C-alpha cells in the first residue's frame, strides 16, 4: 500500500495542473474508480489552491506540503501551508443567500467538502494551517 508520500510544491499557479494529474494517478493506484478520480482531484485541488492563495499569499517561495497515505478503506491527503488560519466552525456548508450567492468566489471549500465528504481544518504541530481530506476506498 502507498504510504509516506510527501510532496512539497511552490505556491505557483503553473504547477496546479501537474499536481491535479498526479492526484488522479495516485487515486487510480490506490483503487479509486476511474469515474471518481477527477472528483477526487478537484476536491484536493480546491484545498491546495486555497493553501497557495490564502495560506501562502501566492508567494512562490512559500511551499505547500501534501502528505498522502493509503490506509485500509481510505485515502488521506493532508495539506499544510504557511499560514495560521483556522476556521472557528465548519465552514462552507451553508452558502448564504443573496449577495454571497452571486459572488464569483467562495465555493472551493464547499465543493471539496461535498465531493470528499470529509474535510477538516486545524493547525499542525508547528501551528500552521492543516487541511485533512479523506476519500473512502471501497
Amino acid at each position, binding site marked *: 500500500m502507498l504510504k509516506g508520500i510527501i510532496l512539497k510544491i511552490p505556491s505557483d499557479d503553473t504547477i496546479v495542473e501537474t499536481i491535479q494529474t498526479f492526484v488522479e494517478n495516485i487515486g487510480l493506484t490506490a483503487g479509486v474508480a476511474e469515474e471518481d478520480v477527477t472528483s477526487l482531484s*478537484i476536491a484536493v485541488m480546491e484545498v491546495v489552491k486555497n493553501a497557495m492563495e490564502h495560506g501562502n499569499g501566492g508567494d512562490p517561495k512559500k511551499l505547500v506540503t501534501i502528505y498522502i497515505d493509503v490506509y485500509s478503506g481510505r485515502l488521506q491527503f493532508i495539506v499544510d501551508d504557511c499560514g495560521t488560519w483556522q476556521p472557528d466552525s465548519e465552514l462552507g456548508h451553508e452558502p448564504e443567500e443573496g449577495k454571497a450567492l*452571486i459572488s464569483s468566489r467562495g465555493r472551493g471549500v464547499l465543493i471539496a467538502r461535498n465531493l470528499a465528504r470529509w474535510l477538516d481544518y486545524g493547525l499542525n504541530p508547528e501551528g500552521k494551517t492543516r487541511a485533512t481530506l479523506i476519500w473512502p476506498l471501497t
Partner: protein
Amino acid sequence: MKIKQEIKDGVMVIRLSGKVISGPDLMELKTVFQTAVNNEKGNVLLDLGHVAWMDSSGLGVLVSGHTSLTREGSRMAILNATKKIHELFIITKLITIFETFTDESEALTSLKE
C-alpha cells in the same frame, strides 16, 4: 476545455466540452461572456452537455457571466447539465439562480422571445 459558439434563433449558444477548471482556458471563457455582454442584444444558452468536470473557478466564471448578462437585461440559461454538474449546482445553491433546460428547442423558444 473547448468552446464553440453559434447564433441560433437569435440566441447565442455557447457549447463547452471537456474540463471547465482553473487554467488558461478559463480566461477565454471569460472573454466569450464579455463579448456576449457587449453584444447587448442577445440572451445566452450555455450547453454543458459535454462538460464532465467543473471546479470552483469554473463556477465562478459562470456566475460572473450570469451576473453581467442579467445587469444588461439579458438572460442566461443552462442546457443539459450532466448529473455531476447538476449536483454541483445543488451543493452550491446556484441551482436557485440558474435557469436550466434539458431540451434545446424548448430552451431556444424560451430565450428567443
